């Protein structure tokens, strides 16, 4: 065999293996780095991926028979040229917006990270993106130029502008103290603007010594403010210079004096100072949230402004719970390494002038605003917010309710600019080129340039960059290299991935990047396979039971939703077809289905009943048609419309298999079932909306420009009227789209789904690759025979050993997770057979409550769909805040409530606080704590009326929830309670419950909200039960709830304090209160873990010993607080 052929065959084999690695293990590493900590290549994951991708690219090119049968040397170099072009395009389009380097100190140390604990930092830098203006704040991204971390010290500068001064020369005879001396002329001089320690105070001697050393027996220059010469002791006030050295300033900088604020002083300017760090070259960016947006000052913030911010810099918040959104990873992927928050106070943010302005970027942003203005003028709200989002990427202004509906419908991807939108823009550009007969190189250049403008304009999100890069590369290959479309798409996906990852490796785990690439990958690789099976197979069975029924379900449900709700939202339909308004809406026809609270679990019954009806209708129609001896699907795909529809169904199936099903659960913990149906309407409509939106905007721009050139204002008016015409129609489409989201959002559940583990992901994608490349693998086996079979078997065994067996091994441990829910309590107890949740954290706005952001994702991650017992230990908002969310999304068998829980669904606010005997709130009824207590209890009272599970109000002294044997050891979970207390300061706290967990030799005590008085009672009543290894600090660590007798009785080794900040600030108290408690626990040698510092705390108990892990490593925070 020729050596070339040999190389070629081996490369072919390696390509297959590398694809497996990249998509299997690569995906695994991305999501579960921790799971792979024992993997050797974890440290080299990026390097590994680069090499793999580059290798695949070159091997594809060299192994010509795979995709390029007619590869010549010339073409090979042309492909290399396309690679280089891609790099050039990427760098030119995105450097300004997403540099990918860490913020470094001049000497290369990342000291900047330490600023997380700083009080204040001064940052000078340029705004490098279009400010994102929201309803209550503005987000800006700053490229720092100078950073002054922790400027705690002050300095003074002499400033004699506009102030008359007297300059005298004199000789120092005697130094009296640190800030006063006597001169030869007999006058006593006091240093102006500073204050040195008095005799007897610390550093007083040092200051005097310093002054003696500097001034004694020396000639000095005194600068005296003409209108402020003497102080009340008749001492001359002066700024003193010796050898051009400002002594006042020197004393201050040496820390031997303090600033002395005096309004009469005008020749001294006070300044903060610290160690200046000049940032050279590319650096990490800083995201600043400017609050609030009211006031013209902040509206003037623009791209390219050079600003100064004085505010603490912080690291972006890391995911601190076992599952949840990792803001730090998200921002790091966008080149942002620090965040800060400033107020509109001009002392915190100040415009300094102009920064490094890229005229191309600036012009793009002005054009973007111009286009948005045309939308503001021609599209009414809220359709304007929708159109502004989908065409220009303006993310503010879309009402929260609409956002939620979009998420639940699985069409949220249309709200954020994605590859799909870029594709529509690219298609529009091609059409425009076609109309103006621009072809080949001209078309390639004009489309690439326009896409570059589009990407810059819309903020260069990973998805748009990926899509635009792929499109430009594809066009380069098609128009310049004259390759076929199919070949170019297969090659461009690899080139684009390689280029983006090479320059921005931190994008690798980013949802936007991964989902975007996997969607395209599914379309290129999985879609043909699905088409082959669904449309072109000869099996009558598949056509009868799969293809046509699937088409029937999708089209049936689409038509149903169209007439049931979507068209009712379109105003022109209401105008011309008023009967639509009178049609009974689905919500009225099937009220139960549309009950928002219960619709989440429709998947178990009603929703599928409808789908099933359409499915069987499909089978029936196909059967009846086949009686005539014809094949329905075959006949249908002869017609272009049906062929397009069927291909669209196949593409949707492919995306579900290759991207949505495995990855939606990983990133969002939920799966939008309706996405499959809704996209059937959503994608074509959004295509038209985006293209018409841009055409309308461009018409307005062109006429504006003409008006400017000709100097006739009327021309601009004509333009805006044409825009109005186009947008009037587009508004109807937007209404239809919003109606669709609303209808589907209510119609179909958006359930939490069990997350794919890293092992399952690898198996999923490996299996998919085996199916996709079945022919190729078969061919390879034929060539290499035994060798290949052994090799593949080894890979298979390796896979089983590493990924499958560990999952099968049954876990016999008990896991207790103390969530980081800010200011609130939530603890999950997970045994091999049971799941118990104790409290649900604090309430919050939709999407941000503790239950939604921390508890539910974690339950999903652990595959928990059913909660055996939900124990609410107190009716305080920080315990019941998320209970409704949990009950409505997870099947809960038993709900335990404290004895003072009051059904207040029919009570007024005053009745409630009176019945609860909250006399303090009766006298102070407007306290936020009191109203939120009522609101949360009212909601819960109403909700549990329809609760399907068992409700138990705990009144017994000891309520045993679980008592069973696990692995031969006793596991017991018991609720401790005392008799009802009515006459105390805090009746809510003094009637709360306490949970005790015992497993083998170890135990955990959770007195979540126990007041001091109740703790005293517990010490007496449960003296033999209290002793535990782990203790939850009562009342979120408030020092008022510290009871030494109780803590000593428990004599725990570790105390966990669930404390932190929440948006709602219900019951929130100052951190110093917790610090006081912490010191008391530490004085008793109890390890104190605060969730606001270490994140969630997970204990694993095996009955004989226990270990714990924290959400954030203790090391990361050891500089912040001395936990030990």
């Amino acid at each position, binding site marked *: 065999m020729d050596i070339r052929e040999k190389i070629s065959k081996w490369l072919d084999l390696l390509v297959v293996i590398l694809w497996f690695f990249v998509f299997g293990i690569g995906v695994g590493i991305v999501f579960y780095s921790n799971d792979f900590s024992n993997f050797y290549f974890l440290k080299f994951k990026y390097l590994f991926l680069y090499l793999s991708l580059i290798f695949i690219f070159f091997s594809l090119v060299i192994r010509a028979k795979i995709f390029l049968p007619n590869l010549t040397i010339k073409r090979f170099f042309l492909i290399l040229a396309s690679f280089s072009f891609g790099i050039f395009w990427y760098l030119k389009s995105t450097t300004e917006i997403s540099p990918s380097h860490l913020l470094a100190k001049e000497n290369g140390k990342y000291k900047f990270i330490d600023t997380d604990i700083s009080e204040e930092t001064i940052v000078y830098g340029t705004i490098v993106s279009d400010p994102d*203006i929201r*309803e209550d704040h503005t987000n800006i991204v700053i490229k720092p130029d100078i950073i002054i971390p922790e400027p705690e010290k002050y300095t003074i500068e002499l400033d004699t502008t506009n102030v008359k001064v007297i300059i005298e020369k004199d000789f120092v005879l005697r130094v009296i103290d640190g800030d006063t001396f006597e001169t030869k002329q007999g006058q006593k001089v006091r240093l102006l603007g500073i204050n040195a320690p008095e005799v007897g105070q610390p550093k007083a001697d040092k200051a005097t010594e310093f002054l003696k050393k500097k001034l004694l027996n020396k000639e000095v220059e005194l600068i005296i403010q003409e209108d402020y010469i003497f102080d009340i002791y008749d001492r001359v006030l002066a700024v003193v210079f010796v050898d051009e050295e400002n002594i006042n300033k020197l004393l201050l900088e040496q820390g031997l004096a303090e600033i002395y604020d005096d309004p009469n002083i005008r020749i001294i300017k006070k300044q903060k100072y610290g160690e200046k760090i000049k940032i050279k070259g590319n650096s990490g960016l800083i995201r600043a949230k400017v609050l609030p947006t009211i006031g013209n000052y902040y*509206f003037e913030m*623009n791209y*390219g402004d050079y600003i100064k911010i004085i505010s603490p810099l912080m690291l972006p918040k890391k995911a601190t719970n076992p599952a949840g959104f990792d803001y730090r990873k998200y921002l790091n992927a966008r080149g942002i390494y620090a965040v800060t928050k400033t107020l509109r106070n001009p002392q915190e943010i100040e415009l300094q002038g*102009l920064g490094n*302005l890229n*005229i191309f970027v*600036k*012009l793009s942003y*002005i054009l973007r*605003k*111009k286009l*948005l*203005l045309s939308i*503001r*003028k*021609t*599209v*009414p*709200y809220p359709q*304007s*917010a929708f159109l*502004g989002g989908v065409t220009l990427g*303006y993310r*503010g*202004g879309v009402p929260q309710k609409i956002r939620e509906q979009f998420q639940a419908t699985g069409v949220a991807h249309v709200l954020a600019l994605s590859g799909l939108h870029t594709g529509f823009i690219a*298609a*529009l550009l*091609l*059409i425009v080129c*076609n*109309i103006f007969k621009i072809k080949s190189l001209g078309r390639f250049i004009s489309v690439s340039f326009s896409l570059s403008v589009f990407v810059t304009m819309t903020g260069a999100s990973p998805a748009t960059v990926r899509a635009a890069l792929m499109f430009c590369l594809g066009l380069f290959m098609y128009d310049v290299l004259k390759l076929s479309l199919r070949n170019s798409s297969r090659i461009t996906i690899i080139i684009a991935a390689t280029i983006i990852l090479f320059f921005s490796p931190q994008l690798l785990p980013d949802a936007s990047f991964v989902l975007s690439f996997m969607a395209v990958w599914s379309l290129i690789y999985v879609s043909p396979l699905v088409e082959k099976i669904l449309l072109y197979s000869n099996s009558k069975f598949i056509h009868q039971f799969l293809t046509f029924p699937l088409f029937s379900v999708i089209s049936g449900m689409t038509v149903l939703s169209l007439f049931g709700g979507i068209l009712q939202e379109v*105003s*022109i339909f209401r*105008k*011309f077809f008023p009967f639509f308004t009178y049609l009974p809406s689905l919500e009225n026809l099937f009220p139960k289905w549309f009950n928002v609270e219960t619709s989440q679990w429709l998947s178990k019954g009603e929703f599928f009943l409808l789908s099933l009806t359409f499915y069987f209708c499909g089978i029936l129609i196909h059967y009846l048609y086949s009686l005539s001896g014809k094949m329905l699907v075959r006949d249908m795909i002869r017609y272009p419309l049906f062929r397009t529809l069927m291909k669209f169904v196949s593409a949707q199936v492919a995306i579900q298999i290759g991207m949505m099903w495995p990855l939606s659960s990983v990133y969002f913990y939920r799966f939008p079932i309706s996405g499959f149906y809704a996209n059937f309407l959503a994608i074509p409509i959004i295509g*038209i909306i985006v*293209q*018409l939106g841009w*055409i309308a905007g461009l018409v307005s721009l062109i006429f504006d420009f003409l008006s400017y050139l000709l100097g006739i204002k009327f021309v601009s008016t004509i333009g*805006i*009227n*044409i825009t*109005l*015409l*186009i*947008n*009037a*129609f*587009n*508004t*109807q489409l937007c209404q239809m789209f919003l109606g669709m989201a609303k209808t589907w959002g209510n119609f179909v559940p958006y359930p939490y789904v069990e997350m794919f583990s890293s092992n399952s992901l690898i198996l999923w994608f490996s299996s998919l690759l085996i199916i996709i490349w079945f022919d190729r693998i078969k061919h390879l086996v034929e060539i290499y025979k035994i060798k290949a079979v052994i090799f593949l078997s080894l890979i298979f065994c390796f896979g089983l050993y590493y990924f499958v067996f560990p999952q099968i091994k049954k876990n016999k441990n008990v896991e207790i997770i103390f969530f980081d829910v800010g200011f609130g309590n939530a603890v999950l107890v997970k045994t091999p057979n049971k799941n118990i949740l104790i409290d649900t954290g604090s309430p919050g706005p939709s999407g941000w409550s503790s239950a939604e952001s921390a508890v539910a994702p974690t339950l999903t991650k652990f595959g928990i769909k059913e909660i055996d017992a939900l124990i609410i230990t107190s009716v305080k908002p920080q315990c019941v805040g998320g209970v409704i969310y949990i009950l409505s999304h997870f099947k809960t068998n038993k709900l335990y409530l404290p004895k003072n829980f009051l059904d207040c669904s029919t009570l007024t606010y005053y009745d409630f606080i009176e019945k609860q005997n909250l006399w303090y709130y009766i006298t102070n009824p407007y306290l936020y704590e009191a109203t939120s207590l009522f609101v949360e209890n009212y909601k819960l009272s109403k909700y549990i009326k329809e609760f399907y599970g068992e409700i138990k109000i705990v009144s017994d002294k000891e309520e045993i929830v679980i008592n069973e044997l696990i692995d031969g050891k006793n596991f017991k979970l018991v609720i401790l309670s005392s008799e009802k207390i009515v006459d105390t300061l805090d009746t809510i706290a003094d009637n709360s419950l306490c949970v005790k967990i015992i497993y083998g030799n170890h135990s955990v005590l959770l007195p979540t909200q126990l007041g001091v008085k109740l703790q005293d009672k517990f010490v007496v009543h449960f003296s033999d039960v209290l002793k535990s290894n782990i203790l939850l600090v009562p009342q979120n660590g408030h020092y008022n709830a510290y009871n030494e007798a109780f803590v000593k009785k428990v004599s725990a080794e570790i105390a966990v304090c669930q404390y932190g900040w929440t948006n709602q600030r219900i019951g929130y108290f100052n951190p110093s209160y917790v610090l006081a408690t912490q010191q008391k626990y530490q004085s008793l040698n109890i390890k104190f873990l605060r969730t606001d510092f270490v994140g969630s705390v997970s204990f694993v108990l095996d009955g004989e010993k226990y270990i714990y892990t924290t959400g954030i490593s203790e090391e990361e925070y050891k500089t912040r607080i001395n936990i030990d």
Partner: protein
Amino acid sequence: MDSATKIFIFLLIISIIFGTVVILTHPEYRVKNIYQTNKNYYPQINDENLNKEFKKLFERKK
């Protein structure tokens, strides 16, 4: 002219016809009224501010 271009031009014509119908039948569908509904949606993006910004851009260039 390929089919995509034809469809697009057809769509554009349809949109203008339907747009005209909408404007004729909805008297509230006028620039002034619409602008009013958007008063809280990016209020800072208006003719005056944009002109200022545009002028500033060229001033900066000088």
